[in-house]
C-alpha cells in the first residue's frame, strides 16, 4: 500500500498522560470519516527531546510539526491540512530559536543537540522493525557477524572510548574484554533498564522510542563476548516500555535476528525480559543479578566482579540502556567518528533529563562537555517564575550538587568528579531559591532511607538517624550540635557502607552542609527558615 502522507503521533509516557492515545484515535476516526484512510497512515513514534512540547504530531512528507495539541485540535488539522491541503498555521510548533517555522528536517529543535542514542526516536514507528531496518537497523549486527571477529568488535568499542552511561562511567570495551577472557562456555549479557534514580527517565524514552537499537546492541555484545543469552531487567513502573520491548523482541525473532543461526551464521542469541518490582537498589548491578535469580535484591561482595562471576555465577556483561544504544552507530561509523564528538576524555554524547524548576522539561542529547549553564539557561529556558537558581542536583540524589558558581564546569564523568560532584545517570534536577535547603536535603535523605535494602548497618540505621535529625531541625527543635552530628554520621555512612547506594547516600547532605551552612544555622540558632518554605513556616504561622 502506498500512502501519500504519514502522520506520526508521539506515544510516550509523557504524552499519554496528556491524551496522546485519544489524539491518535481521533485522528484515525476523522481521517476515515473523510475517506482519506487509503491515503494517509497514522503511526506511533517516540519522544523527540526537550524542545518539543508534548504531545506532538509530525506530518510527512510535509515536515510539519503540530505541538502541543489536544484532541479538540484534531478535527481542524485533518479537515484543513489533510483534506484541503492548508497547514493549520496557528497550531504549528514555533521553535525557540531562529529557523523556518515548524520545518522538521534538517532543522533540529535545538542547535546544541546531537543525536546518536536518540537517532531514531520520534522519527520511526518503534513497533515496526522494518522502519528500524530502513534506517540501517541491524546492519551493524550483520557487519559484525559477517566481517568482524569478536576481538575486532571489542577493539573497536575500546577504541571509541565509550564509558558506561549508567552512572559509574566504566569503559565499556574493557568490560566486554574482561568477560570475553573470563573462563567458561556459558556467559550472559544483561541490560540494566532498572532506571530508578529520581529525576531520570532517559532509558524509558530510549526503550519506548527505539527498542530495537538496544536489542541489536545486546546481540552484538553477545557475539563479542561469546554469550548466547541476554536479559533485560526493566523496572515494573514502566509498563509502556515493557510492552514495546516485548513486541520488538518478537519481531526480531520472526526476522531471524534473534534465535538460532542468526543471519545464516553459527551465532545464536536470545533476549528475555525480567520485570523489576519496585526496588531502587536493583539498579546496583549485583543486586540486579540477585533479583534476576529470584532473590531479594541485596548487593553482593565485589570482587569477584560480574565480568568473572555474574548471573548464576557465570561471566556477565551488565550495560546500561543508553550505553548499548551507542553501540550500533559505533560499529557502523567507526570509533574515530565517535571520538570526534564530545571531549577527548569522555567521547560521545549524553542524554540529560532536565527537571524541577526550569521552564522546559524533558530529555536532550548533547555532546559531552557541554556546560550546566547551557543546559539550564539555553536548553531549559532558565528558571521558572523569574526566581534564582539555588542548586542543580546532577545524577539524582546519589550524584552531586552544583551551585550557581559551578555552572561553567564542562559536563563529563572526569570533570565533575574533580569538583566532588558526579555526572551519574544524567538527571538534572533544578531547584530554585524559593526552596528551603533543609527541606530539599530531607527529601533526598528520605529517599535513601526508603530504598536502603537493610543489608548493612551504616546505611540502614544511619539514613534513619539523619532523617530524624533533619525532621527535628525543620520543626524548630534542632540542637546546636546537630550540624556536627550530621557531618559525623554522613562521613560514617560514606566510609563504611557496603555498596554504592550507601556510600553515595550522604553526598547531597554533605555537599549542601558545605554550601548552605548558614541556612542550616538559621534554622538552629534563629529558629527560622530564611526561605520560609519548610515546615517551620507552618509552625510559625500557628504561633502567630
Amino acid at each position, binding site marked *: 500500500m502506498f500512502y501519500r502522507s504519514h502522520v506520526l503521533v508521539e506515544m510516550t509516557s509523557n504524552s*499519554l498522560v496528556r491524551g496522546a492515545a485519544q489524539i491518535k484515535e481521533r485522528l484515525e476516526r476523522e481521517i476515515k470519516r473523510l475517506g482519506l484512510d487509503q491515503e494517509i497512515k497514522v503511526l506511533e513514534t517516540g519522544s523527540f527531546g526537550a524542545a518539543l512540547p508534548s504531545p506532538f504530531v509530525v506530518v510527512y512528507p510535509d515536515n510539519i510539526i503540530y505541538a502541543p495539541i489536544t484532541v479538540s485540535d484534531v478535527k481542524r488539522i485533518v479537515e484543513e491540512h489533510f483534506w484541503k491541503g492548508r497547514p493549520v498555521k496557528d497550531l504549528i510548533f514555533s521553535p525557540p530559536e531562529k529557523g523556518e517555522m515548524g520545518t522538521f528536517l534538517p532543522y533540529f529543535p535545538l542547535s546544541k543537540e546531537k543525536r546518536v542514542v536518540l537517532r531514531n526516536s520520534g522519527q520511526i514507528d518503534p513497533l515496526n522493525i522494518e522502519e528500524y531496518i530502513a534506517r540501517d537497523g541491524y546492519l551493524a549486527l550483520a557487519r559484525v557477524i559477517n566481517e568482524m571477529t569478536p576481538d575486532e568488535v571489542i577493539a573497536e568499542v575500546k577504541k571509541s572510548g565509550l564509558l558506561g552511561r549508567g552512572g559509574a562511567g566504566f569503559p565499556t570495551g574493557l568490560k566486554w574484554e574482561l568477560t570475553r577472557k573470563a573462563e567458561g562456555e556459558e556467559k550472559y549479557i544483561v541490560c540494566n533498564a532498572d532506571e530508578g534514580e529520581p529525576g531520570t527517565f532517559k532509558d524509558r524514552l530510549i526503550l519506548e522510542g527505539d527498542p530495537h537499537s538496544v536489542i541489536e546492541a545486546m546481540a552484538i555484545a553477545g557475539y563479542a563476548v561469546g554469550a548466547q543469552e541476554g536479559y533485560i531487567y526493566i523496572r515494573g513502573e514502566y509498563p509502556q516500555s515493557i510492552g514495546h520491548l516485548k513486541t520488538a523482541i518478537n519481531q526480531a525473532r520472526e526476522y531471524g535476528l534473534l534465535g538460532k543461526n542468526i543471519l545464516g551464521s553459527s551465532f545464536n542469541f536470545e533476549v528475555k525480559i525480567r520485570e523489576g518490582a519496585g526496588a531502587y537498589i536493583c539498579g546496583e548491578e549485583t543486586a540486579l543479578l540477585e533479583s534476576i535469580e529470584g532473590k531479594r535484591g541485596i548487593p553482593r561482595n565485589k570482587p569477584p566482579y560480574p565480568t568473572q562471576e555474574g548471573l548464576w555465577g557465570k561471566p556477565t556483561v551488565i550495560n546500561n540502556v543508553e550505553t548499548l544504544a551507542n553501540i550500533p552507530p559505533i560499529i557502523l561509523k567507526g570509533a574515530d567518528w565517535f571520538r570526534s564528538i564530545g571531549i577527548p576524555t569522555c567521547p560521545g554524547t549524553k542524554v540529560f533529563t532536565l527537571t524541577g524548576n526550569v521552564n522546559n*522539561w524533558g530529555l536532550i542529547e548533547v555532546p559531552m562537555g557541554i556546560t550546566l549553564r547551557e543546559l539550564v539557561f539555553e536548553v531549559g529556558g532558565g528558571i521558572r517564575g523569574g526566581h534564582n537558581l539555588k542548586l542543580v542536583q546532577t545524577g539524582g540524589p546519589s550524584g552531586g550538587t552544583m551551585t550557581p558558581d559551578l555552572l561553567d564546569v564542562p559536563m563529563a564523568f572526569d570533570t565533575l568528579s574533580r569538583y566532588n560532584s558526579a555526572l551519574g545517570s544524567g538527571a538534572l534536577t533544578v*531547584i530554585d531559591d524559593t526552596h528551603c535547603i533543609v527541606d530539599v536535603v530531607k527529601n533526598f535523605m528520605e529517599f535513601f532511607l526508603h530504598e536502603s535494602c537493610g543489608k548493612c548497618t551504616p546505611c540502614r540505621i544511619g539514613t534513619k538517624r539523619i532523617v530524624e535529625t533533619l525532621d527535628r531541625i525543620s520543626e524548630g527543635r534542632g540542637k546546636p550540635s546537630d550540624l556536627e552530628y550530621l557531618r559525623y554520621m554522613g562521613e560514617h555512612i560514606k566510609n563504611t557502607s557496603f555498596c554504592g547506594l550507601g556510600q553515595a547516600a550522604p553526598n547531597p547532605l554533605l555537599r549542601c552542609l558545605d554550601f548552605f551552612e548558614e541556612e542550616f544555622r538559621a534554622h538552629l540558632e534563629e529558629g527560622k527558615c530564611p526561605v520560609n518554605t519548610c515546615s517551620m513556616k507552618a509552625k510559625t504561622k500557628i504561633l502567630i
Partner: protein
Amino acid sequence: MIELAVYKEIDEIMEKYREEKTPLLSILQEIQEKWRYLPGDVLGYVSQKLDIPSSVVWGVATFYSFLETEPVGEYVVRVCRSAPCHVNGSLDVLKTLQKELGIKEGETSRDGRFTLETTSCLGVCGVAPAMMINDVTYGNLSEDRIREILALYR
C-alpha cells in the same frame, strides 16, 4: 482458605516458567497480578512446589515494594515522592489524596476500593508532580485534576 480452583490456576502459572532457571520473582508477580496480593497460603504452596524454603519466599515477597502480602484496594494509588515532583508540589498531591480518599499513606479505604502509597520515582519527571493508579500514570497534577481523575475510578 484458598479454594482448589485457585491452586490449579497457580499450577498453570508455574508451568509457564518451568523452563526458567530462577522464576520465583516472576511467578509471584504474575500471581499478584491476578489476585492483587500474595496470601500466606499461596506463598507456602509456591515454596513447596519450587522446593525453596518458605523463609526465602517470604523474604522475596516482603522485599519488593510492588509485592503485597496483605490485601490491598482495587486501585493502588502511588504518589511519586522524587525530588523533581517534590519541588513541584508532591506533598500537596499527597494531602489532597488523603483528604479525598479519607485514608493516610499505607492505608486502604474501608470499601476496599483504594490503597494510598508513596513511591520513590515513577520516571515521568517531565510531567511532575505525578502519580500512578494501578498501571496508569497521571501527571501535571493539581487539586482539580486529582478530583477529576479519582472520579474515573469511583
